């Protein structure tokens, strides 16, 4: 099997053994059916054990898997009539973000998402899914267009982060991200955001101010990469595994923190094992979300989004404190 991960090796090996035995029985008269049955039972248990108790670091690995389905792959499975629109009408066309119009089961929508490459060549073209300001400005242009034509907006989040580069700073990376947060807050159409891979900090959030936020089971969403956190906290990037656990970056973590609405289940071992099946899981949640949100009026959608973010944060008041005079 290609692209297997360390933690799932026992499953893979057992599967291999079973298929070998099956091959063997075909070529001889020896009956091994009871042995095979036993092994298959064991496999079932093992799969349950491994895939239902995925550790945060293993989720990070799945989220970063080179074969992890990208925005465009999900678009091709989930939507019809997708028409990609390029450019920010200002500086350039950032291929680290894709967007356009499409239909979702007949409903006109605008779809936007970070886009990684599937190979080195495409990754260079798409800057590994790390946008420049013009990418965010293209996204905003398409969101405004969606608002004008009253189309719901669906955003797929999948980036290590906004690109940290000289040109990006010169063209206002901060402003571009900030502007999106500001404008998305006021959109008078339903906005649904789905984290499909890595949700890297502000670069992810700039497509992430929605009425509903969902995460694929093995995706991550964080203020900084585990490696970055480890370097900052313990001056040791090799502590990334530990950071992945401490930082609360997995879908179950974010669900517990009340930040996301739904965890979208993944096919066993990760979305990359079956894109079509995975798209069906996303499809169900997306339908449910849209049904809920289309009932809400334009003004209420904005209010709904406001309170969603207003509610995030933990604090208390001290009984006694030093007064500033």
């Amino acid at each position, binding site marked *: 099997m290609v692209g297997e991960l360390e933690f799932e090796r026992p499953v893979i090996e057992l599967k291999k053994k079973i298929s070998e035995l099956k091959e063997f029985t075909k070529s001889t008269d020896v009956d091994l059916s009871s042995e095979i049955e036993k092994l298959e039972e064991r496999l079932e248990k093992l799969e349950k054990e491994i895939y239902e108790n995925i550790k945060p670091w293993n989720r990070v690995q799945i989220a970063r898997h080179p074969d992890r389905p990208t925005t465009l792959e999900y678009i091709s499975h989930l939507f019809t*009539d997708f*028409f*990609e*629109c*390029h*450019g*920010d*009408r*200002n*500086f*350039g*066309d950032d291929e680290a973000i894709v967007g356009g*119009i*499409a*239909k979702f*089961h*007949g*409903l*006109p929508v605008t779809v936007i998402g970070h886009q990684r490459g599937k190979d080195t060549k495409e990754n260079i073209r798409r800057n590994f899914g790390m946008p420049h300001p*013009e990418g965010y400005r*293209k996204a905003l242009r398409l969101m405004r*267009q969606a608002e*004008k*034509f009253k189309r719901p907006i669906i955003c797929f989040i999948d980036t290590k982060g906004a690109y940290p580069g000289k040109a990006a700073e010169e063209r206002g990376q901060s402003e571009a991200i900030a502007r999106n947060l500001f404008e998305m807050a006021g959109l008078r159409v339903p906005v649904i955001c789905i984290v499909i891979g890595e949700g890297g900090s502000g670069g992810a959030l700039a497509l992430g101010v929605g009425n509903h936020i969902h995460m694929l089971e093995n995706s991550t969403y964080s203020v900084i990469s585990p490696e970055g956190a480890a370097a900052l906290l313990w001056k040791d990037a090799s502590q990334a595994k530990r950071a992945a656990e401490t930082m609360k970056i997995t879908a179950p973590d974010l669900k517990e923190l009340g930040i996301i609405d739904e965890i979208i289940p993944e096919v066993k071992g990760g979305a990359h094992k079956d894109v079509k099946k995975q798209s069906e899981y996303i499809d169900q949640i997306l*339908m449910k979300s*849209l*049904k809920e949100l*289309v009932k809400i009026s334009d003004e209420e959608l904005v209010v709904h989004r406001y309170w969603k973010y207003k509610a995030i944060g933990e604090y208390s008041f001290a009984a006694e404190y030093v007064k500033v005079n």
Partner: protein
Amino acid sequence: MLKDIFTKSKKKKYATIPSEAAKQDVPEGIMTKCPKCKKIMYTKEVSKNLKVCINCGYHYQMNAAERLQSFLDEGSFEEWNGGMVSKNPLNFPDYFEKLEKDREKTKMNEAVVTGTGTVNGFQVAIAVMDANFRMGSMGSVVGEKITRAIEKADELSIPFIIFTASGGARMQEGVLSLMQMAKTSAALKRFSDNGGLTISIMTHPTTGGVSASFASLGDYNFAEPGALIGFAGRRIIEQTIREELPEDFQTAEFLLKHGQLDAVISRLDLKEKITTILDVHAGGEVKWLEN
């Protein structure tokens, strides 16, 4: 500088392409040579391929009649304000004569044709500019006809589609021409605020005042491959900045790269792709949302 491009391309492209009248019995232009790949082909074959070179995909210019015929459903076009003609507000010498000459040459009253028709069944308001008439320049008539088409689209609640081809403002009408940029843009703003859909398709060439007004104001801005699109002329920029400009400067592909276009669309796919957009915008009943 724009003038050079026009005269050059006219010589190259139009010498061998038969006019509307000559099309039936093609006496002179039986063969045609592609200006890009130099392949010699049957003119008929190129015409049948929507005037796109069968060898290299080079897009020959289309006149307004050819455009309407290739883009709209057969027999669906109905013209608006076809009789509107120019005055000579600045008493510009020879202006009427020049207009008359172009009328004869193009069998059109002005540089734009407007009206309504259907695209695979979707009704649209449409304006098609023709670079053969006064280089497709915008004077009072072009501005007014386009504005009226936008107003009519608003009134009928149908999309507005414009094919641009223009050298810019019409010099003979001076500042009145300049103001047509503001007039058409104001009409598009009102249409847009009322929820109207505008699709702009820039064809070779779209420059000056036209590129700096309605051509760039679509909800979707497209261009045909290789089309020259820009504000200032290439030579004037080179003289100003004293630098040689890249070969692809101000081409449709250059604009796409610099964020100005949603897409560059081959003429062969154009009708189908625009239909997709019209279809998504038309929406329709979505039953599963109800329960």
